[in-house]
């Protein structure tokens, strides 16, 4: 009996471990059959002709999180598309993904392995700023070209320093995002005079993300005295909370024109349900989580909720690149991209491929020069170019978008050049 039990336990423990191993090897756990087998590639490489050796992209994402999982899936999609079109410089592309598990030490170890064991030509990926901070010393040690898809905190920028010429940051910094929100709301009010914002209330989760969001909102919106700002913290469902009654009471008493909440996707629907129960319906109701829960758009409560983001499937209507990405993703994985990290990571591969083509090699110096000259029409509905930010020399995207859930779809409201719909205002009373 004891032997049998031991065997059962070993098998039970081995299944998740094996699955995690697979995830590290392929980077695309949802569709192992559709991916190459990079784990076998390093062993096979010496036997192949040197001219056919693949160009290796080494990436880290948090694969247990939807952002990282879909980011890695989209990157693999881009790699497969490029390979199907003949590869780069007569060579195939190969994507090697390691799960950073949202941990700084794991992320740093992954960079070390990708550079020293896998001998990758470029580093890519990333989501959490904390992980990026842990990776930076290792990245600096090797000086490989990095195309970063995450890390919004400006502390990362400060840690990189002004001489990080090898670091190409696609995601906007936190201050870029804040500035774009102010600009967006100013322009929306000008274009739609019915929308008037004076009082803003921010419900923010108790952690660093929420507190930083509140501090940024106060600085950016409160700078010239045009807006009145108040806010209150709540414990996110992601941290074991989920009772929003106190924060909604405070918001209701304040009577804001714009109610924003900065929390996680787990808070989205319960917050709306409790708002409805308390009959709290401000003129504009806006959520700013990193992602949205599955099927959020199907809930009737989601209608007319506004959001900040970088991409939505509705951009397919105005961008052929977005449509190509979307159709390819759905065809390959049978799921919709649920987070903007998917098109962002897809873009990262194409930005790299484009630069390699122009540089004619993967040599670091040539690659940096070519990347600086990037002008890539991305599926995000905007072109990606690089120019200096406050600290680093190569900053890509600088703005987020203001969107609104309308009939189950995220529609782009601002910037107007990417708009797919007009705003519905005010947020209907319950």
């Amino acid at each position, binding site marked *: 009996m*004891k032997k049998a*039990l031991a065997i*059962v*336990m070993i098998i*039970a*423990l081995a*299944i*998740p471990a094996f*699955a*995690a191993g697979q995830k590290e090897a392929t980077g695309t*756990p949802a569709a192992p059959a559709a991916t190459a087998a990079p784990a076998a590639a390093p062993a096979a490489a010496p036997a192949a002709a040197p001219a056919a050796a693949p160009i290796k992209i080494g990436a880290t994402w948090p694969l*247990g*999180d*939807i952002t990282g*999982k879909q980011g890695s899936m989209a990157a693999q999609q881009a790699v497969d598309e490029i390979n199907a079109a003949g590869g780069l410089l007569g060579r195939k592309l190969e994507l090697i993904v390691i799960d950073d598990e949202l941990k700084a030490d794991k992320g740093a170890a992954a960079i070390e392995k990708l550079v020293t064991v896998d001998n990758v030509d470029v580093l890519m990926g990333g989501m959490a700023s904390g992980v990026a901070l842990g990776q930076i010393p290792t990245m600096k040690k090797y000086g490989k070209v990095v195309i970063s898809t995450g890390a919004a905190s400006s502390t990362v920028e400060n840690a990189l320093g002004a001489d990080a010429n090898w670091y190409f940051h696609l995601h906007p910094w936190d201050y870029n995002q804040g500035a774009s929100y102010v600009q967006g709301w100013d322009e929306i009010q000008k274009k739609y005079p019915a929308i008037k914002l004076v009082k803003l209330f921010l419900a923010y989760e*108790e952690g660093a993300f929420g507190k930083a969001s509140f501090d940024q909102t106060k600085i950016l919106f409160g700078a010239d005295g045009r807006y009145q700002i108040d806010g*209150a*913290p709540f*414990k996110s*469902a*992601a*941290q*074991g909370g*989920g*009772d929003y*009654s*106190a*924060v909604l*009471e*405070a918001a209701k008493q304040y009577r804001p024109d714009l109610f924003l909440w900065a929390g*996680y*996707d*787990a*808070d*989205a*629907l*319960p917050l709306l*349900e*409790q708002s*409805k*129960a*308390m*009959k709290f319906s401000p003129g504009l109701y806006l959520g700013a989580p990193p*992602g949205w*829960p*599955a*099927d*959020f758009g*199907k*809930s*009737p*409560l989601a209608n007319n909720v506004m959001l900040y983001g970088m991409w939505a499937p509705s951009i397919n209507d105005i961008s052929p690149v977005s449509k190509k990405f979307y159709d390819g993703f759905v065809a390959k994985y049978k799921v919709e991209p*649920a987070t903007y990290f998917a098109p962002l990571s897809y873009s990262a591969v194409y930005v790299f491929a484009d630069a390699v083509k122009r540089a004619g090699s993967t040599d670091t110096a040539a690659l940096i020069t070519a990347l600086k000259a990037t002008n890539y029409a991305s599926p995000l509905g905007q072109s990606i170019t690089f120019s200096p930010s406050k600290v680093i020399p190569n900053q890509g995207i600088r703005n987020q978008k203001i969107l609104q859930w309308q009939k189950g779809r995220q529609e782009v409201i601002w910037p107007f050049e990417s708009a797919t719909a007009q705003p519905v205002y005010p947020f209907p009373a*319950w």
Partner: protein
Amino acid sequence: MANKRNTTILVGLITVVLVGILFWRPTVLIYGLQAAGLYASIAIPMGLILGIVHIVNLAHGEFMMLAAYLTYMVCSALGIDPFVAMVPVAVVTAGFGLIIYKLTIRQAIKAPELNQLILTFGLAIAFSQVVNLMFTSQPRKLSFGYVSASMDIGELTFGTFNFVFVLVAVLMVVGLRLFLTRTTAGKAALAVGQNPNGAAIVGIDVDKTYGFVFALASGMVGMMGAMFITRSSIFPAVGSPFTMKSFCLVAMAGIGNIPGILGASVLLGISENFLKAFRSTRGWSDIVFFVLILVVILGRSIRGEKA
């Protein structure tokens, strides 16, 4: 005599405080009681296991999480309501609990407590990781109109749905009391909880009783998992904070004191919401939680030493 007088004074004080809160800010009492109902109804099954099987089940919240995912799948596939799905889900979770007991817990019943903790902690990690692999970390939530039910009293508007958890907690306490004192199986469970060796001597099958109680508690927490999905999003890590909260409530109430869990939950729920009512103390709810536990446990220890 002195004890009776002290109790009367305590009850009087509590009543005065509650009435004061009701007039000063009724939402503190309303939302405090609602939170207490949720805490208690999740903690009571853990109290049952700890009181009778004497195991701290660190996978308690993960059992609830598994039941919530099962409910999500059943409700999504069949289009039924979680309150309908909770019956089959509770039965399945009870069966799963029995299997887990037979395969793992039973082997560690006589092992040192640290081994038991490591075992159930391992189970918790295995459960959440398997769900993460199957469903990813993306939260899921089913939307139901009745969750937003509300009531207006004058200018006060508040949600009423969460009172269902208060009802469930009270039913659990009453039901368990009746079960443990009026049924043969319940009396056997009580005897095993108090003295397993003595119970074995009088012919009670201790192992079967442990298995039954573990399955019963798993079924109860499974039922809570089904109801939990009505108010909260679910994701692989959703259960673990409730394990900690449940354990602390059981510790506050005292091992085996099921009605005490309800009392501790009310104290905690109202205290949390009292602090949330003030701008400067809104983020202190976790602190008050642990302060209350320290005060209650220290107070009990000091009283025990004096006695």
